[in-house]
């Protein structure tokens, strides 16, 4: 991989420039993928019989999934022809009204691809018939045709929309976010508890009910487990939980006043964490049940947030006060070869590895007052970095999405701590939460 990914974003999103604080050579993530950017038209799907009332949720979810993937140039629906095909049998060689692929390929739509289909209530089950065609192909044979099944309600409509969107995105080599989950801390019940939601903010669900302080969630690489820190037994300690059922699993905490900052190894077999058993918070690794723990770092400073590199499992990033104010470091998982990644200005924390093992998101106060964090992106090979947020409240807790192109983070730009997502170029900004204070999101695969 090239050390600097030269970005050829063709997105016409004017907001890009606003989020830029240009460094001589910025770190960049390739958003659009290889082969240029397809332009996609997606009809408003209709439902037969009892399926129609849930189609608003379906169409909204499908469009959002495809748009936020960042892969497509989405064609505005106001440009669509009057008639829409619902199945390949509706397509004609020419119509001028929308029932020919040429109507979608030509001006003003200029779509390279058309997604269409319909849903129906079949014996109480919602069935989606989804198609994707290339508009300038000589044949009406779909590139993609698939049936999807869901419950006959809005939840089922969103589920089949996510699955269809994921299959469309996969056609272009993208990884869909559909089905991915964001785990986060919310104070909306009055106590900090762990919650989960779909990546688009729907399905917000409370996972812990300790009425204590539950913070710092981490998600396993396969999405099936989460680890977090709870004060439910007095001192902060690590709890392991099945992310689907909410059932806690055994985890041995060392006899220390503080066990915190859990994260999973890339193969999901180990938990890295920070413990004060030596008197100061230091980094340890243990088996998934907390046994066989081993000390990694050996300093007199607070060392937290160990994050193992997904491509180089012998490397980890972490944050430490070993040279003064907190900074982000990289080192071997046996404790050696420690190098400071951030240059010592301000305070830096919250490292999160891109799945590529090269690009690191983190929060940094560089250029701002103490505590005034913004989200930064660093190419760890060159140490070149780029600032993704600027000035609008505190922006912290960045976490990469499994697709390696999106991130979620906490921002106080609206006056309260809320969770937002965006593409790694600063575009496609979405706010996901509104109630209470919401923070520390981590983005995992679906469970």
């Amino acid at each position, binding site marked *: 991989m090239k050390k600097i990914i030269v970005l050829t974003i063709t997105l016409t999103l004017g907001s890009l420039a606003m989020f830029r604080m240009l460094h001589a050579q910025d770190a960049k993530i390739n958003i659009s993928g290889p082969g240029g950017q397809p332009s996609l038209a997606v009809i408003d799907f209709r439902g037969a019989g009892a399926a129609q009332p849930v189609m608003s949720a379906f169409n909204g979810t499908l469009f959002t999934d495809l748009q936020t993937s960042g892969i497509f140039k989405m064609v505005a629906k106001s440009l669509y022809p009057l008639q829409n095909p619902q199945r390949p049998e509706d397509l004609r060689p020419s119509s001028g009204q929308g029932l020919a692929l040429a109507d979608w390929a030509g001006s003003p739509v200029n779509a390279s691809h058309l997604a269409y289909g319909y849903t129906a209530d079949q014996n109480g089950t919602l069935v989606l018939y989804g198609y994707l065609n290339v508009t300038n192909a000589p044949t009406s044979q779909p590139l993609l045709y698939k049936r999807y099944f869901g419950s006959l309600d809005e939840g089922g409509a969103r589920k089949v929309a996510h699955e269809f969107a994921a299959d469309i995105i996969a056609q272009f080599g993208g990884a869909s976010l559909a089905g991915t989950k964001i785990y986060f801390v919310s104070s909306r019940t009055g106590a900090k508890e762990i919650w989960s939601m779909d990546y688009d903010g729907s399905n917000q669900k409370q996972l812990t009910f300790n009425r204590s302080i539950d913070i710092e969630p981490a998600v396993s690489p396969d999405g099936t487990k989460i680890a977090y820190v709870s004060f439910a037994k007095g001192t902060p300690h690590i709890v392991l939980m099945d992310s689907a059922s909410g059932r806690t699993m055994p985890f041995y905490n060392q006899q220390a006043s*503080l066990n915190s*900052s859990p994260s999973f190894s890339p193969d999901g077999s180990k938990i890295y964490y920070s413990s004060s058993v030596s*008197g100061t918070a230091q980094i340890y690794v243990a088996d998934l049940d907390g046994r066989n723990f081993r000390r990694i770092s050996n300093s007199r400073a607070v060392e937290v*947030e160990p994050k193992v590199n997904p491509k180089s499992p012998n490397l980890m990033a972490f944050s430490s006060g070993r040279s003064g104010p*907190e900074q982000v470091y990289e080192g071997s998982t046996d404790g050696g070869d420690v190098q400071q990644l951030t240059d010592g200005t301000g305070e830096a924390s919250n490292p999160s590895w891109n799945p590529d093992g090269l690009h690191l998101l983190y929060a940094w106060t560089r250029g701002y007052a103490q*505590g005034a964090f913004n989200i930064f992106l660093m190419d760890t090979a060159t140490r070149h970095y780029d600032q993704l947020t600027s000035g609008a409240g505190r922006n912290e807790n960045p976490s990469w999405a499994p697709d390696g192109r999106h991130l979620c983070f906490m921002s106080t730009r609206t006056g309260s701590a809320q969770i937002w997502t965006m593409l790694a170029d600063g575009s496609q900004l979405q706010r996901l939460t509104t109630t209470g204070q919401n923070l520390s999101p981590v983005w995992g695969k679906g469970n």
Partner: protein
Amino acid sequence: MFKRMKPAALWPHLSAVVAIAVLAAGCGGKKPIPIGPGSGGNIPTTTNAGNGKPTIEFTVEPSTIDRGSSATLKWSVSGANYISIDVFGAVQATGSRNVTPYDTITYHLKAEGTAGTSTAETTLTVNPGNPAVPPPVTGDGGSNVSHLSLPDRVAQQIKDVFFAYDQNDISGEAQGILTADATAIKSILQDFPNASLIVEGHCDERGSAEYNLGLGDRRATSTKEFLVQLGVPAGRLRTVSYGKERPQCTEATEDCYARNRRAHITAAP
């Protein structure tokens, strides 16, 4: 006895004497009229400074008391339109006050008239006597605390200590607070033999939640270690870090930040 000028410096060794001094300002030729001490300690003094200046009679009786008793200060002034006594301020031309000073004291009276100002003073000698020895000082300064619950004792007698930004060192000021805290804690732990205490470490909102948990842990630990050095039993102190999770205030001001960078001690439930 009667003296002119600067009488306050003259009497400390004459414990049973009430002095009355009259100064007729600017008058060098006239001597004040001396009045001998009466057998009852009542020493009425009259002065006529001449030249139309105010005339003052200023006494205290008895002139010597035991600490805790009272004496009566009396005065009578003529020819003045403004009269003041140092400890009372403005007074009427004739009057009296009960006084109960803790130590020997000299009262000063000043009378201002159209023709000039006259002053007089009188000293009340206080014998300390032989008071009983007070009970030994406890953590709350000796007041009765036996009725207080453990959480109340802890809340009232143990003070928070504060830290600099990103630091867990015990400052000189914090050492003073913790020294007093240690005395109070030892007394509390004696009175509640089954109790144990929790040292909480807190941080301001700047910095990551993860780092602040570690920092708060160090603040709690260094506070505990300092208390243990002063003789507080280590086994009865536990530590917990709340990082920035339980702030006392949430404003983004240096004052609020400073209040949140603290170690706080509570009773273990």
